[in-house]
């Protein structure tokens, strides 16, 4: 049986940061990485750009073999985790082999949700989560005339834009009333919608797909109002959730993801979780939330690695803050923090139709920033995130901050974290 000091399941951002953090403190302990994916590490976030051709599969890798050799990491791709026995400190792999570990990190990410639409098992559809998904979607995109994207989150919207640019007639079907809900507010979503409409996409928000039938060129979708839409390419992008079948019988507590404390420790000894599979404390809610975004995966992976290695420099997790950037038809949208207006707080909004600049900032009752959202209005998202996490009192600077978030944010930064 293979034995290792640190066993890491998964190979994307959380796992890579954990390797760095472990090696900062423990230069020698044996690290083994097992990952379901057959490739070297890459980011799911880059995949829309592989679909668009902006990047290529061979250029997306985040680490090369030298990295693993240099850091003395035994990297095993195509090697999925199948089960855990925390009492025995053993992990079972899909090929039937067993690895004994001293400490285990679960960074297995998430998989696309496939909604239980009647007939979905009889039609061909795409998802976009792995490099192989991206390659397949890119190949299919070339010949598509009528594409349907199910789900208007960032993955779906990215793909829809790619399809539009590839010359397909594209319909976006989204259950909620607006596009990109959960990322951007109504006004920003309206701007995104206008951009898509202006480029020829059709948008069916507020509708559910109630049935799928094989059609002449692919599939035919039936909407809840009776409309039917033909699709020679169907992309299902309604969200992701972790696949946690390997936890069966392990006793590790889960809700929507693996529950962790502020040092990413799970409910059982010597097992940590980080990234899209983990459910950690939300900065605004104080309760465990799914915050499946790249920056949070790196923070969590770092913390988990430090905790596993016993690094005394560990600072507890500040809580997950939503952070998203989105690039559509040459425009940039950025969202930092929570869109909800806290009790006693307020939201300030400005919109300049001529320049297309939109800004919404949310403050709590103590004049502290809790969220900021912009389209074509650039500010330093990292500085804003710090203002939120540090619960900085903007006080008398609030008006100037709202007028000039870039300059005023930098001014605050220079006073507060030199």
């Amino acid at each position, binding site marked *: 049986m293979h034995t290792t000091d640190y066993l890491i399941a998964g190979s994307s951002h959380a796992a890579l940061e954990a390797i760095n953090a472990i090696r900062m403190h423990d230069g020698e302990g044996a690290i083994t990485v097992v990952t379901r994916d057959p490739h070297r590490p890459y980011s799911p976030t880059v995949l829309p750009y592989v679909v668009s051709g902006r990047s290529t599969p061979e*250029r997306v890798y985040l680490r090369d073999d030298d990295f693993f050799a240099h850091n003395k990491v035994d990297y095993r791709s195509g090697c999925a985790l199948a089960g855990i026995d925390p009492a025995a400190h053993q992990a079972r792999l899909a090929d039937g082999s067993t690895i004994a570990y001293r400490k285990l990190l679960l960074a297995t990410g998430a998989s696309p949700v496939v909604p239980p639409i009647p007939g979905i098992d009889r039609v061909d559809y795409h998802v976009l989560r792995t490099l192989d998904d991206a390659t397949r979607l890119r190949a299919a995109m070339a010949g598509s005339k009528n594409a349907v994207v199910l789900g208007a989150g960032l993955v779906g919207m990215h793909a829809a834009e790619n399809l539009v640019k590839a010359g397909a007639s594209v319909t976006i079907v989204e259950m909620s009333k607006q596009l990109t809900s959960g990322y951007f507010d109504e006004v920003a979503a309206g701007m995104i919608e206008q951009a898509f409409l202006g480029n020829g996409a059709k948008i069916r928000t507020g509708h559910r797909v109630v049935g799928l039938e094989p059609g002449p060129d692919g599939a035919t979708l039936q909407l809840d109002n009776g409309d039917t839409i033909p699709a020679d390419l169907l992309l299902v992008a309604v969200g992701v959730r972790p696949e946690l079948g390997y936890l069966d019988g392990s006793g590790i507590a889960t809700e929507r993801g693996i529950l962790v404390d502020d040092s990413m420790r799970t409910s059982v000894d010597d097992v940590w979780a980080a990234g899209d599979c983990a459910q950690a404390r939300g900065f605004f809610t104080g309760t465990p939330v799914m915050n499946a975004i790249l920056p949070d995966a790196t923070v969590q992976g770092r913390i988990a690695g430090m905790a596993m290695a016993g690094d005394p420099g560990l600072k507890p997790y500040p809580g997950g803050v939503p952070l998203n950037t989105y690039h559509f038809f040459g425009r940039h949208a950025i969202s930092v923090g929570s869109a909800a207006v806290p009790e006693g707080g307020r939201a300030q909004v400005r919109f300049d139709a001529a320049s297309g600049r939109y800004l919404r900032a949310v403050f709590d009752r103590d004049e502290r920033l809790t969220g900021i959202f912009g389209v074509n209005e650039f500010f*330093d998202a990292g500085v804003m*995130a710090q203002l939120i996490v540090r619960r900085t009192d903007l006080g008398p600077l609030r008006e100037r901050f709202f007028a000039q978030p870039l300059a005023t944010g930098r001014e605050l930064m*220079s006073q507060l974290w030199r």
Partner: protein
Amino acid sequence: MGQAYSTIAFDPAKCDGCGKCMTACASVKFDSTDTTRSLIQIVRSGGASIEPPRPGEFELALCRQCADPKCVTVCPAGALGKNGATGVIDWDASKCVDCLLCTIGCSYAGIALDEHSGRVSKCDTCDGKPACVPACPTGALRHITTARIYNEVGSWEDLFAPGLAGCQGCNTELLMRHALRRVGPDTVLATPPGCVPGMGSVGFNGTTGTKVPVFHPLLTNTAAMLAGVKRQYERVGRKVTAMAIAGDGGASDVGFQSLSGAAERGERILFMVVDNEGYMNTGMQRSSCTPYGAWTSTTPVGEHTRGKSQDAKNLPMIMINHRCEYVATASTAYMEDLYDKLDKALAASERGFAYLHVYSPCTTGWRFQSALNIEVARKAVESNFVTLWEYTPESGLHFTRPVNDPLPVADYLKAMGRFRHLSPEQVEHIQNKVAENLRFVRKIAEQADER
């Protein structure tokens, strides 16, 4: 050993917000006059409502080329990476997918959207020659290249034994290890009585504390003995550097006649004085290099005396009057300057007498915390209490680190306990002495300029 890197340093106290750095950057990087495109951004910080702005109110948004860069960790495309050779966070434009996630990762606004190109932009230090630095008229921006020394020095052999018995925070240990590394293994070393043999250069139990031949002359005959040793090596045809590491007491008091004689004869030796302003090894007695007002065990502070009542002898200026091949003053707070002078002194010692006078704060004898040695050394220079210069007979005396806007000498005196008792009159005396010394050295420097 880890790699050290050059860096762009910013001193907010000197920045008046003129923006010339931004103009230079925008011009060099984008061929543009639009300073919002500059990769270095001067930001108005405190008291932004008061006009006109004053120095100290400006700060910097600039890539810090972090050792642990968050922008790199959040990049999904592998387009950002820390360059192990230069230390710069490299941005690969061909890999970047313009997702802007790096701007979320950076807390310092060091990587930001350039609205003209629609892409992120960040400082690449202009391949090691940052255009912003020479454009800065106030000296607020500096390009610190000292890292080069440490990278080089790291590959040279440390020629002292690992466990020298210096006091905690001893500057002399730092100095002698650096100096001997540079001078190299083909050296015969003379270490007369003082802290250098006191902490172990001459060794214990029959083994030396150095990996080069070392001997322990008397205080009185160091330069004479070393000159004889050097001549013998020359006679047998071996090229060897003859180096002395002597204290100020040994050099300026009883050792002075042999030092002066060797300098006058032009002996080909490198004589380095570690000036800690007293006989620190034997219990902190005063020497002729101890400054006015300083407490020592023989210039006590009590009812009748208030520290040393005479001014210090200016030994390096005396050495100039020997027309040595090379004379210089140096400080461990300015390592590039020190290494530059070591190189020149070493070369000069092949032609004649080379004299290097290094100011060396003493944690134990001067009474300050062991972590503050370099800080004290720096304040000595910043207040003009000591001046850094070099002299050769051909080109005369030149300041190497002129300080035109000096700190009050009181700032230096307050940094240590040996001056704690000073009366305002004594501080004034020292301030006047600083001015007088400076005038004197400047006069010599002006003569050199007239040539």
